[in-house]
């Protein structure tokens, strides 16, 4: 897998121009999926279609394609074929999801991703082929988000894009929302100032310190920024160098060069988020908590991409009367005409196991009125667009990565199984080989 964006773009263009000729033939086998109902998510479904995959990418898709002699054919007659699902926001698959320090934009999830974590195995089992892995909701600026394919043993090889955005949480890990927001505004103002004049303002006030790293050629000798300060600097946290690095990354949020993934726990956080977005010209992806139904009118005005809480349907107790009211977030948002995406629970100990599965979340939304095609788009092309990775994933189109899920039937039905999951044209999950599923379902000997 090519991890560098530029390379990927070059490869993509290359693939479009010289299909199959820019890689040695041995990179990946040629595979044809034949006979399935293909929901490409880029146009109408194709019945009994064919997908040709060469060197890990989709070469062609259509109803009556001739399969060249060198292609290995996988017969998926009667099955439903879709682009691999995309988990738009997840804190699974990491050794540790949160740093305790609330302000660490210079850290990346790539330094804590565990390729052998059960999260990735579950992803493959459930047809999720790409995940936006983000720091948790317990830090103010939690760090850098990466997009990863869900199969592999070595993280650099799984990485689709190293940096898709920065995670910001409006829920204070400690203290009040006042101080939390004051701190956050201060950091964003420093970033704004850096973007405007290349100077890193001191954390304490308005004085500007020269951006040493810039003038010294930081790209060449990043370690030197810490040089003169000796061990004392190492004991403080974060160090001046770390802060500087953080401000530089945050400055890419200003004006929307980089995606700002903002967690809003409550309805009041949504209002704050909207003000921050406007003030700092952020390009947001809003990740919402359960209580945000009360902010739906605010969200209606702007068309920002939204990810709903894992808990889609719940009871709310009126504090005075103790009257219980059932809240369905999908219904609230459907009625308001606000589009949204889903996230799955990564905590398997939750009582409602359904929320562990993206398809279940989508099915719940359909139950409460979301059109089916929009529910499916919210599992595939919409998250790809939200993360800016749609040039490579999210739909079955020529030139895109051959990340494909083969289902036994309706993607939103409980009786449907993922039959096979392909990433880069390679079968990374096969229900027939799933020993754990077999053990779960087999009849005990009598």
């Amino acid at each position, binding site marked *: 897998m090519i991890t560098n964006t530029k390379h990927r773009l070059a490869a993509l263009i290359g693939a479009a121009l010289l299909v199959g000729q820019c890689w040695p033939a041995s990179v990946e086998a040629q595979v044809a999926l034949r006979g399935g109902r293909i929901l490409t998510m880029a146009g109408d479904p194709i019945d009994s279609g064919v997908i040709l995959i060469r060197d890990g990418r989709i070469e062609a898709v259509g109803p009556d394609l001739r399969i060249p002699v060198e292609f290995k054919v996988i017969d998926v007659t009667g099955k439903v074929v879709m682009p691999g699902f995309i988990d738009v926001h997840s804190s699974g698959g*990491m*050794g*540790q*999801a*949160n*740093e*305790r*320090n*609330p302000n*660490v934009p*210079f*850290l*990346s*999830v790539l*330094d*804590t*991703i*565990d*390729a*052998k*974590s059960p999260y990735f195995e579950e992803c493959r089992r459930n047809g999720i082929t790409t995940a936006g892995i983000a*720091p948790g909701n317990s830090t103010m600026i939690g*760090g850098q988000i990466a997009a990863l394919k869900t199969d592999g*043993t*070595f*993280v*650099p090889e799984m990485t689709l894009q190293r940096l898709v955005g920065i995670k910001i949480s409006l829920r204070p890990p400690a203290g009040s929302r006042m101080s939390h927001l004051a701190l956050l505004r201060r950091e964003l103002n420093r970033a704004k100032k850096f973007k405007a004049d290349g100077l890193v303002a001191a954390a304490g006030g308005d004085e500007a310190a020269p951006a040493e790293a810039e003038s010294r050629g930081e790209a060449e*000798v*990043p*370690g*030197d920024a*810490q*040089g003169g300060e*000796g*061990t004392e600097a*190492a*004991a403080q*946290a*974060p*160090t001046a*160098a*770390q802060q500087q690095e953080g401000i530089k990354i945050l400055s890419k949020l200003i004006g929307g060069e980089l995606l700002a993934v903002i967690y809003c726990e409550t309805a009041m956080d949504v209002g704050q988020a909207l003000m921050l977005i406007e003030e700092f010209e952020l390009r947001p992806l809003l990740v919402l908590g359960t209580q945000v139904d009360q902010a739906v009118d605010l969200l209606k005005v702007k068309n920002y991409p939204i990810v709903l809480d894992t808990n889609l349907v719940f009871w709310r107790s009126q504090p005075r009367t103790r009257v219980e009211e059932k809240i369905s977030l999908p219904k609230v948002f459907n009625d308001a005409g606000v589009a949204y995406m889903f996230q799955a629970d990564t905590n398997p100990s939750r009582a409602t196991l359904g929320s562990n599965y993206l398809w279940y979340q989508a099915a719940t939304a359909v139950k409460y009125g979301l059109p089916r095609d929009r529910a499916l788009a919210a599992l595939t092309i919409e998250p790809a667009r939200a993360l800016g990775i749609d040039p490579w994933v999210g739909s079955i189109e020529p030139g895109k990565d051959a990340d494909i899920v083969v289902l036994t039937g309706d993607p939103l039905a409980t009786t449907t199984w993922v039959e096979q999951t392909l990433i880069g044209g390679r079968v990374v999950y096969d229900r027939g080989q799933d020993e754990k599923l077999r053990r779960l379902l087999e009849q005990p000997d009598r």
Partner: protein
Amino acid sequence: MNRIRGPGQRPIVERGVMELGNEISLRPLAVALLIFAPAVLLAAEALSQDSVDQSRDDKPRLAIHVGKIITCVGEPIINGTILVSAGKIEAVGPTAEIAVPAGYQEIDHRDRFAMPGLIDPHCHVGGSSDLNEMVYQTNPELRNWDQIIPHNDRLKIGIAGGVTTVCFIPGSGTNMGGWGVLMKTGPGKPEDVIIRAPGVLKIAQAGNPERQGGEVGSGRMGMNHVIRQQLLEGQYYVRQWDLYEAGQLEHPPEVNLRLENFKPLFRRQIPILVHTQQYQVVHATIAILHDEMNLKIIIGHAEFNAFHLAPELVKRGIPVMAGPRGFYFDPEIGQLRGLVAEYDQRGVTALGVNTDSPVVPQEDLLFQAAMAVRYGWTEEKAIRGMTIEAAKALMIDDRVGSLEPGKDADIVIATGSIVDLRNYVVEVFIDGRSVYNIARDRRRY
């Protein structure tokens, strides 16, 4: 091992006033001597108490006749003789082919096995037990040869278990605990027992070095960031010196004692012994320390499910010195897995065991190997793993790890293969001198 600060430790090494400057790197032994004055006295005292045969001079000349010599290079020699002089192995071969020169003392071990002295790649008992400085997250200014105690009681029993060389390292309380030393376990002054200082750099990537409060490094994202930043600082420093020495800089860079020891590291002359113990952590070790920084590394611990990374380790030729946990209960299969065997089966040949002493007692290095064999390693590989493979990983195979002419005469004589726990060590030579002999010293283990 983490944060061992034993109660009642004797304050053996007092850090004297040092002159700080260039000469430290140029004259390490002189400086070591200066620092170790108290330790030397102690060592000398140990020596006299230890009933080492005083009738032999410092460099005895010996002809040791042995039933079977496991040289760890090539096939074992049946009925062989090892000639030792000047602390080195002079010749090794079948007794019939070795002419014993005049003046060589002949030692009869004809019913016994000989093998190279064992090497423990992960030891914390080479000196005083204050292994962790917990103030800073990275401590490249610290060097633990400031605290060694040659031939201390734990090393002495280690010898009875065949251990002649240890990699004595700082603990894992911080992300970079400091520089460890490679030393012999036998008696002598520091400059006699030190093989190389700095021996290795100690880095710890998860678990023990987690920080509290507001510090960056409460999680693995932060810890890896901290490690990377410190290494980048060191890399830049060494690069400046390399440029100067290549004549590309007019003036020498300013000497920074905190970063001086990074020179041999970034010149790939010494490895990092990494405290790294499960899949994600070992992954980060490979990705950051090897792939990003292009450094020599040893996977220390290598426990839990990290063996799934064996193909990546094989691809890069990275050695694994596993332990002290020798096995792992794998919930995937509901069974115990023998860790060394898992690496072995996946093609890792640069493979050994450690004790993390005192986590496992120093003398039980052979027990660690025996348990690995119980779980599916082979006896031959186990013997190589404790000797030549450990020596190669630590980059001291020019000195120790096999019985070959020119190498240090570190020889273990045992009643048979020591991976069979029914056998025991009979005599041990370090640098050609008998430092343990059950007839003389009583059997200690």
